């Protein structure tokens, strides 16, 4: 008699743990029951993301780079699992390489994006980038793994924390990526993954006053994107709008996705004896 397989329950990823939706709801997608996140789940995820900001932004860039590289190592080991979920092998490879690419940026972005300023007076004057804080994101639906990595990695490598709404129609790669993150020494709360209906949860994320920035890359509905951007204005969130043309997730991403969630701090001090 053949062995009966153990099926997996796909849950949310909040604060480093895998809870079910507090609403007790799930939806059937990709032949699985997946948690249908609620407004309360969004708020729990933001609380977890906020709590993680101090530790994660305070860790050294070297350490953050090591952890992102560890994510690549873990993802490489689970490569076949993502292929089994229907992700193209080339996309899985690109996603692994993307973590490696961003890992290397952790201790370089401040050198590339910050600089000394030659002011006309006897002052030390230095501008350096700092993370914006908590970033709410809607993951791109067209590329469930590579697209997700393409938006999450550049936000966290600089010290931000993230609440990401997974692609509604293909959430399994996102939940599985959460398992990778949970085993990569990434502190709990740095990345929080919610599955469910974007149109239901995104407005709560966009209007949340403890979210500092909003990445709408994955919002295809223009009217929804407009209303989310409007809601974001209440506390002047930094907003990345949906792209005008489809994104090629395999191309060199450049630094714009990192700099969109960076603030520039300029410190002055007099020189003298």
């Amino acid at each position: 008699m053949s062995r009966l397989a153990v099926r997996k329950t796909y849950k949310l990823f909040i604060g480093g743990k895998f809870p079910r939706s507090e609403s007790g709801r799930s939806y059937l997608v990709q032949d699985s029951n997946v948690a249908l996140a609620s407004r309360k789940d969004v708020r729990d995820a933001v609380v977890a993301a906020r709590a993680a900001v101090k530790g994660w932004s305070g860790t050294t860039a070297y350490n953050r780079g090591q952890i992102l590289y560890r994510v690549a190592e873990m993802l490489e080991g689970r490569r076949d699992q993502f292929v089994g979920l229907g992700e193209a092998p080339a996309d899985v490879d690109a996603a692994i390489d993307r973590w490696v690419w961003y890992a290397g940026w952790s201790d370089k972005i401040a050198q590339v994006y910050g600089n000394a300023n030659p002011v006309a007076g006897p002052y030390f004057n230095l501008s350096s980038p700092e993370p914006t804080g908590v970033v709410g994101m809607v993951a791109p639906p067209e590329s469930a793994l590579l697209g997700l990595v393409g938006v999450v990695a550049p936000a966290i490598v600089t010290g931000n924390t993230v609440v990401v709404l997974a692609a509604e129609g293909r959430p399994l790669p996102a939940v599985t990526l959460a398992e990778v993150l949970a085993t990569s020494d990434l502190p709990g709360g740095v990345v929080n993954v919610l599955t469910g209906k974007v149109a239901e949860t995104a407005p709560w994320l966009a209007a949340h006053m403890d979210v500092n920035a909003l990445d709408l890359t994955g919002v295809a509905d223009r009217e929804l994107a407009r209303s989310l951007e409007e809601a974001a204005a209440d506390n002047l969130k930094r907003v990345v709008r949906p792209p005008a043309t489809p994104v090629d997730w395999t191309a060199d991403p450049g630094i714009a996705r990192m700099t969109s969630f960076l603030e520039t701090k300029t410190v002055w001090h007099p020189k003298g004896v």
Partner: protein
Amino acid sequence: MFEYAPAPESRSIVDIKPAYGLFVNGEWVDGEVRNKTVNPATEEVLAEVTWATESEVDTAVRAARAAYENVWSRMPGRERAKYLFRIARIIQERARELAVLESLDNGKPIRESRDVDVPLVAAHFFYYAGWADKLGYAGFGPDPRPIGVAGQVIPWNFPLLMLAWKIAPALACGNTVVLKPAETTPLTALVFAEICQEADLPPGVVNIVTGAGETGHALVSHPDVNKVAFTGSTEVGRAIAKSVAGTRKKVTLELGGKAANIVFDDAPIDQAVEGIVNGIFFNQGHVCCAGSRLLVQESVYDEVLAGLKRRMALLRVGDPLDKNTDIGAINSAAQLERIRTLSDIGAEEGAARWSPPCELPDRGFWFAPTIFTGVTQAHRIAREEIFGPVLSVLTFRTPAEAVEKANNTPYGLSAGVWTDKGSRILWTADRLRAGVVWANTFNKFDPASPFGGYKESGYGREGGRHGLEAYLDV
């Protein structure tokens, strides 16, 4: 205090016309709606100014579009640079005239308009002129492109300086602009339009439309504006952020602040007192990055307060054109009312109010330098931007408490730190959520140094290499 002889700067150097039109496509055009701009120190009417209507704004945007498509975006950077250098030189040559006019229209002391505003204006054009043909080296890719037509709305606190912060980088990057100065301080922007003519700047590259809120709204919501730049209140900034939702317009916002100025017990007290005074009383406190919340370590509270009161008693309030004046006029009756209201609320909520004895002129809009002690974080004067010469004093015991209190605000524009200990400066600066941190100094500005806020103080930077990003398609 010994008496000073009056040392008024002559106003004969300025030639204010009785009425001004709009500056569109290189020419002056008469407008439909007229309003008066007054000298806030005397309430004397200085000139009649046009308030541009929606259709007049549309004409200006069209002129900017045509100049962008046909001339400015095609011109090599080295040629754009020379126009900007030319403008910088003319500003230097007309510096005294601009300084007097600024003080007349705004109410700020001539010492500040002469020594701070106007020199920084010229420096800003010089700085960005040099970038115009070097944009490929700025770190935004090998061939960064301009955005198009910029709609720019500026406040009344540093009228010409804010114009420079907006126009210099926009033009250097190859954009054309339509700029709206504040309704109470339009005059130096109108003289700047003359300077553009004098520099033979191609028509339509710079357009100046005067007016109030409706004119600004027409400008930022115009469908053919590609870039919106606004400096002003957080309330209006929020409305602009909402109005551009769903568009492709690039936006930068420089909004309000409630900066903490932290004085540790090992700070050089005399220097700190100078910094506190400069931080809150510079420009009558009409400064978004003003150090309006003083956080003093308990152990030096008495000493700092005594020094501060002693120093405040020496501040001379009065005629903005007198070269001895430290504090000029409040810019408008409306702003004076707001300062009075919030100050009264501060007293009602239980904070102790103190001002040095000082005689205020009978006419004009005036407010004596004021401090509130016994202020808690819950008080409205500790939370809301007063935008006047009013300082709230709070205390702290530990560095961690200082940082906690400093960051306890939705704003994040600037902050000050006073201590003799280098490691403490850097520790504190790292933890302050603010775009500019002045350590053992305050209110320093330079075209090479980026300026702008965290959180609800807005987004984007003005000044420095970072300031180019706001005007490039990156």
